[in-house]
């Protein structure tokens, strides 16, 4: 017996329209990156507060040998332990490994191989305003502060805010 035919429908989704598991999100992200494209999505969490805030729209760029990763870069990566996609800042980099940390988290992530990095944050948009682009001297300084464990307190005084209980920055496609 043949199954019934149902009308074919294409739907446009936005924001929270889809609930993707992180592995799937990562697969989609990698597929876009392989095409040399960029990837835009809404961040959720406070681990990169105040540079990236809950609900900011992040644009990731594909990694390129022309622009090697360096300390200060904010990247999307597969978390070495949880396997989830996170967006954290590189605080240390060697020839084969890197270490990341959320700006608003006291404990750094473990050292991990370079290939866990999926893309580099090139833009952060908050509403209609672009609040950050690329990696400049400020970001390298932030990475240094972060590595020394000075960041949460320094940032809170700088921005006159109390450090929040951090939730990891994840995706909300």
């Amino acid at each position: 017996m043949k199954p019934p035919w149902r009308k074919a429908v294409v739907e446009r989704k936005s924001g929270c329209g889809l609930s993707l598991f992180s592995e799937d999100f990562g697969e989609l992200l990698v597929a876009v990156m392989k095409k040399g494209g960029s990837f835009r999505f809404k961040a959720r969490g406070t681990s990169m507060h105040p540079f990236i805030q809950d609900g900011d729209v992040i644009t990731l760029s594909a990694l390129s040998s022309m622009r090697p990763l360096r300390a200060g870069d904010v990247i999307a990566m597969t978390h070495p332990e949880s396997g989830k996609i996170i967006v954290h800042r590189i605080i240390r980099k060697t020839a084969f490994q890197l270490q990341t940390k959320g700006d608003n988290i006291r404990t750094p992530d473990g050292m991990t191989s370079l290939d866990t990095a999926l893309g580099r944050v090139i833009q952060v948009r908050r509403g209609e305003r672009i609040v950050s682009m690329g990696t400049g001297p400020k970001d390298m300084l932030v990475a240094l502060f972060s590595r020394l464990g000075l960041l949460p307190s320094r940032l809170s005084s700088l921005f006159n805010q109390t450090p929040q209980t951090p939730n990891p920055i994840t995706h909300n496609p």
Partner: protein
Amino acid sequence: MKVNLRAAYRPSGNIVARTIDGRLIIVPLTAGVGKLDDDLYTVNETGKEIWDLLDGKRTVKDIAVRLAERFEASLEEIEADVEALVGELLDRGILV
């Protein structure tokens, strides 16, 4: 966009499509950017059946005939559905 029933369409090179949890997700790359915050598409099960046959070799008519062999509906009904979906995907630049 007017759909030619004798034409064969295929996914554009400017999209990324993945099946996630059995659901087809299509991300158009607009100026090289895949915008997951506000611009992705999904099709229902029937749409995925059609999508899987859109390979640039089978015509719209071929696809309808093939699906009519597998599903309980008239060829005319299925053909009209395939035509409508293909037209919508062409309009969005997802098919070429």
